[in-house]
Structures are given as structure tokens and as C-alpha cells.
């Protein structure tokens, strides 16, 4: 596997553009101290599109604002292009930022908005016009330059905000949930646009979002955050396929992963036998086993898309009742009442089982995970090369 899933995943020939070391940020609140960012380490290479993703309040925006210099870190340090920059003011960090609330200056036209950073840099009028025209072309807003932000739609405003960021050719772009105010269709469009701009400019982008789908689709690397800490960093696909712990497994992927309480009957390097609480005992080949993280009580996880669902109650497996359908054209999201409450599956529309009927669920081996039920860490997963479903003992 060429891609790496660990935190220190820098390849030697790539230049590290932004580096965070043990970053910590505390806020004073009336009832004491709130730790927003709790010791974050992160290396971001030149040209990387890195997304910080996590639920609201996980510290992702605060981390970004610390990189920007809009917040002062309580502890830890930051390197920009190899130089320590923790004491540099936001003006001098040479970073560009796109905000959640678009923050175009309402009293300036689109052109004046885009040109403002160049004006501050003391560039001549002729140069400014040229640079603005180029930037406007990249985000395709050439015709809108003389309008005021109030006269433009949300998507157009966001394009102008992006061109204001790219006009200056900064060290990196910081984006703080720039699409959260756009509607779903526009979001998908801007997602493509942003990926295109990223490739065209070979820009380093640090992107913050709570939307795992946004994170998965655009990034070279995602950092899943929870409670002020980074839970896992890696290529989106790796994070999806090999989640480090139950939090990452639950946060990444839609519909949410199924997690069942279970206990180990027998486990070694090659095979695991697991008894699901109030359910059957499953045995399957494993491709990875980390005994130091293991426990007897486990959470058994499997992805909703990687299951076999059959209507026949005589087939051995996890016995459930279909509770609710969510038809999405080609496929159906089925919500099931299982031995431990709600379970989720996604099946092709021709395999759907009517609401109220019985369904037997059999997870496929490659997407089976075993998590330590007290620490949440993954310690084993199904063998990635095996096809078919787990055996029922």
C-alpha cells in the first residue's frame, strides 16, 4: 500500500508546507477552561488537499483559525514552509482564507473585493487588473466583476470569495466550511470546481467541514477530529476501509456503520470466532490482528453496503425485521430491527425486502471489524482478499 495511514506520513521527496506540533488551544469560559484543541500534530505537504472533518465542537475550526493566526495557540507550535510561525501575525503568514459566512465586503464591487489584497500589497493598478482578470477566469465569474455582493447568488459570492483567496498566490488556502450555506446541488457543483482549481493551481488547501461526504470526495488526505484530537489521518479511502476506532468508523461512511456488542470465543492470527450478544456466533478469516489492543468484549462492525440480506428466516445469520425503507432510485436503504436495536443495510432495489418482513443479515468478510469495546480501538479486521460472507457457527 503506497498510501499511509499514520500521522507522520510525509514522503521524503515532498515539501512540508504546514506543520502543527502538539497544538493546544484553551478558551476561558465562565465555568473554567474549555479545551478546544488538545494536542494536534499534523503535517501538510505542498499541493495537498487536506480536510479536517469532525462533528461540531470537535475543534476543527479552532485548529484552522490557529493556523490562520486568528486564534493564538495556548501551547504547541506551527511551521509554515519550515519556519516557525506561531508568533507571526495573520497579516504576515501569507495564507488566504475563505470563510463560512462568505465575508465579501458589501460596499465593494466583486472586482474591488478580489483586488483588495493586491491593493494592500501595494501592487500597481495595471498589474492588479491583470491578476484579477486571471483569477476571475479560473473561477468563471468574468461577467460579474462590476456587481456588488448583494446582487449575486450564494454560489457566485462563494466563487468571488475563492478568487479573492487565489489572487494573491499564498502559501496555502484555508477554507472554513465554505459550502455549508449552499444548497445540495450547488454544493456538488462547487465541489467539482474546487477540485479542479486545486489541480490547476497545485495549491495547498486546508479545508474544514462537518460533512464527511465533502471530505471524502475532494481530499487527498483527511484528518478525522473528535474532542480536540485527531483520531485518524489518511487517504479518504483508507480511512473508510480501515478505520482506527469506532468513532472514525461511525463518522465516516453513510449510512452509518453497524456496531454490535459481541464477545470473542476464539481468535488467532488467521481466524476469529465471535458471539454476538442475543445473536448468532460468526467466524471469519482475519487479515490483521493486533493482540496488544484486543479485549474479550468487542464491538463487531460492518458496513451497511457490504452485507447479504435474505428474506428466508431459515437461513442462519443475524435475524432482523425490516422496519423502514428509504428508496433512492437504484438502491434502497433498509432500516432493520435487529438483536440490539436498529441496523442499517443498503441493497439494490431488486433485492429489497418488504417493510415488516423478516430479513437475515450476513456481513461480508473484508468489511468486518473488531473494536476493543472499552477503548474503541480496532484490533482486527476481516481478511481483505476473502470474498463471501462470514460463517455462522
Amino acid at each position, binding site marked *: 500500500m503506497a498510501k499511509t495511514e499514520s500521522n507522520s506520513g510525509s514522503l521524503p521527496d515532498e515539501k512540508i508546507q504546514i506543520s502543527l506540533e502538539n497544538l493546544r488551544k484553551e478558551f476561558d469560559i465562565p465555568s473554567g477552561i474549555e479545551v478546544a484543541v488538545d494536542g494536534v500534530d499534523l503535517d501538510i505537504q505542498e499541493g495537498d488537499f487536506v480536510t479536517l472533518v469532525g462533528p461540531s465542537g470537535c475543534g476543527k475550526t479552532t485548529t484552522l483559525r490557529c493556523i*490562520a*493566526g*486568528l486564534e493564538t495557540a495556548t501551547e504547541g507550535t506551527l511551521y509554515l514552509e519550515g519556519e516557525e510561525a506561531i508568533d507571526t*501575525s*495573520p*497579516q*504576515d503568514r501569507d*495564507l*488566504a*482564507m475563505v*470563510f*463560512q*459566512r462568505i*465575508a*465579501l*465586503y*458589501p*460596499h465593494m464591487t466583486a472586482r474591488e473585493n478580489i483586488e*483588495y*489584497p493586491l491593493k*494592500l*500589497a501595494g501592487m500597481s493598478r495595471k498589474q492588479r487588473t491583470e491578476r484579477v482578470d486571471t483569477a476571475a477566469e479560473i473561477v468563471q465569474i468574468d461577467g460579474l466583476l462590476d456587481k*456588488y*455582493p*448583494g446582487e449575486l447568488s450564494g454560489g457566485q*459570492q462563494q466563487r468571488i470569495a475563492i478568487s*479573492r483567496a487565489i489572487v*494573491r498566490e499564498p502559501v496555502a488556502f*484555508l477554507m472554513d466550511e465554505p459550502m455549508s450555506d449552499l444548497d445540495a446541488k450547488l454544493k456538488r457543483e462547487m465541489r467539482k470546481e474546487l477540485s479542479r482549481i486545486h489541480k490547476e493551481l497545485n495549491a495547498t488547501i486546508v479545508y474544514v467541514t462537518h460533512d464527511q461526504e465533502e471530505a471524502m470526495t475532494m481530499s487527498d488526505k483527511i484528518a478525522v477530529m473528535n474532542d480536540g484530537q485527531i483520531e485518524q489521518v489518511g487517504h479518504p479511502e483508507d480511512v473508510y476501509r480501515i478505520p482506527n476506532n469506532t468513532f472514525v468508523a461511525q463518522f465516516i461512511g453513510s449510512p452509518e456503520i453497524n456496531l454490535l456488542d459481541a464477545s470473542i470465543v476464539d481468535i488467532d492470527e488467521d481466524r476469529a470466532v465471535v458471539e454476538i450478544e442475543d445473536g448468532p456466533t460468526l467466524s471469519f478469516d482475519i487479515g490483521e490482528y493486533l493482540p496488544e489492543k484486543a479485549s474479550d468484549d468487542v464491538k463487531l462492525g460492518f458496513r451497511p453496503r457490504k452485507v447479504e440480506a435474505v428474506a428466508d428466516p431459515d437461513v442462519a445469520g443475524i435475524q432482523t425485521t425490516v422496519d423502514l425503507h428509504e428508496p433512492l432510485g437504484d438502491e434502497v436503504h433498509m432500516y432493520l430491527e435487529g438483536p440490539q436495536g436498529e441496523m442499517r443495510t443498503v441493497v439494490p432495489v431488486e433485492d429489497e425486502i418488504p417493510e415488516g418482513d423478516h430479513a437475515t443479515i450476513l456481513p461480508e468478510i473484508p468489511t468486518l471489524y473488531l473494536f476493543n469495546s472499552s477503548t474503541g480501538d480496532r484490533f482486527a479486521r476481516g481478511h481483505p482478499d476473502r470474498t463471501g460472507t462470514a460463517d455462522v457457527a
Partner: protein
Amino acid sequence: MVFSDRVSNRIQSFVGGILPYQERLQVRKAALYFVVILTCVVMMFPMYWMLVASVQPYDHIVQTPTWFPTQVIAAFQIDAYISVFADRNFERWYLNSVLVAIIAIVSSVGASTLAGYGLTRVQFRGRKNFARLILFSYMFPPILLAFPQYQIWRRLGLLNSYIGISVAHIAISLPFSMWMMWKFFQTVPIAYEEAAWMNGASQFHSFKDVAIPMAKPGMVAVAIFTFAVSWNDFTMATILLPDSSMQTLPPAVQTFVQQNYVYWGQIMAASTLMSIPPFLLVYKLQESILEGFRTGGL
């Protein structure tokens, strides 16, 4: 308009049961016009009376007040306007009032903008209490402050000076203005300034290029408020400007009332001339308030 809307809605619902929908809408429209016109007549009549009295001979005003247009035109004369300028120092008082108002507006808008920005954007201990305390100082009636001010101003040699009276007006208007700008800056998202910092703007630049333009509607409101305080002030001007040549309009016009004779015509002529600047100011600045709202592109 809200009140007149409600009244006309009430009238509409009163006749609502009998008439079809289209006609009900017409009744509503007619009722709305009626209420609006009535309100305007009630509001404008004193001003009309002022205008009429300023162009009538003295006898007409005190003995047989006329207001019907034809009668007014029949007795039309501008003697009162001529005599306020010819017999009195009216242009000097007018100039005094304008200058004092300008000094007060400029200082008050400048100081309250800076103060409002500072109170919202700079963290310091006791910030909230400080901001509330400001409003408290607005609660004193001017007459309470006027006598100690007279003592102080005399010592400082500020009696009968533009600066002296302007400072007194600023002292009355500034607390409320500061409070208003404090509140206003709270509604201006800091994201705009953060965006400016990320664009490389210094704190000063972000204040000048971003915060000030966005605070324009608030500044206009402060300007109008300060103008009203300064232009209408009677108490302070009476006490702090004993010299007739330095007086502002309100106390000066008061001298038109004499022991056994009241120059009604001249008072009305002076009042008419006095109401021109407020009219122009509000008319002009109202446009920029609206402009401020239009460009507030949130």
C-alpha cells in the same frame, strides 16, 4: 405606516362580511388613504400654521387668525422675514448654530465610532460594565449639569465660545451615541475584518476599509441624533452663551418675546428658517441610511 395599516385592516374586516373580496380590497385601500391623509393633516397642520403666521401682518395673527389659503394670499407679506435680518442679528445666530452643530456632529460621530469599535473589538477588564455605565451618564437632565458646567466653563474661559458650547452638546449626545455605536458594531460580524487581516490588512486598514463603511448606517444615526441635540438645545446655550452675539438660535429666538410685546411674525419666520437645515440633513442622510441597508449584503 404600521399603525395606519392596522386601522385600515380593522375597517376592512368591519365591512368584510358583506362585500366580495375584490371590493373589500378596494375598501381597504380607500381606508388606508383616509388614515394616511388624516395623519398627515394632523402632523403637518402646526407647520402649516407656522408658515402662514410668518407671512401675515401682526394684526391678522393676534386678532383674526386666518388659515384659509385665499385669505392668506390676500394678506401675504414678507415683512417678518425682512425684519429678522434687518432689525436683528439673525444671520450671526444662524451661523453660530450651524457651526456648533457641525463641530458637535463631527466630534461625536468620530468619538463614538472609535469608542464603539473599541468596546466591541478590544478585550479588556470590565468592558461590559463600562459600556453600561456610559448610558447611565446620559440619564442626567441637562439643567442639572448646566450650573456646574457654567462654573467650570467660566474658569476655563470657555463661556461664549464655539468650543465651549459644542463640548456641552457633545457631553449630552456622546453617551447615547457611544452606546448606539457599541450596539451597532456588535451586529457587524468580525468575519469581515478577519477576512481583511487574512488579506494582509493591518488593524488600522481593516477598521478604515471594512469596519467604517459597514458602520455607516450607525454613524448616520449618530449624526442625526447629535444634530437634533445640538440644534434644539436651549438650556446649555442660555447658560453657557450669555453674550448675545454668540448665541445659537433657540435662546436667540426666545428674545423675540419681550415684556409687553411678542413678535409672533418674526418668531414664526425664524422658526421656518430654522427648520430648513434639519429637513435637508434628514433628507440627505436618509438616503445613505437606506444605502447602508441595501449594501449590507448578508
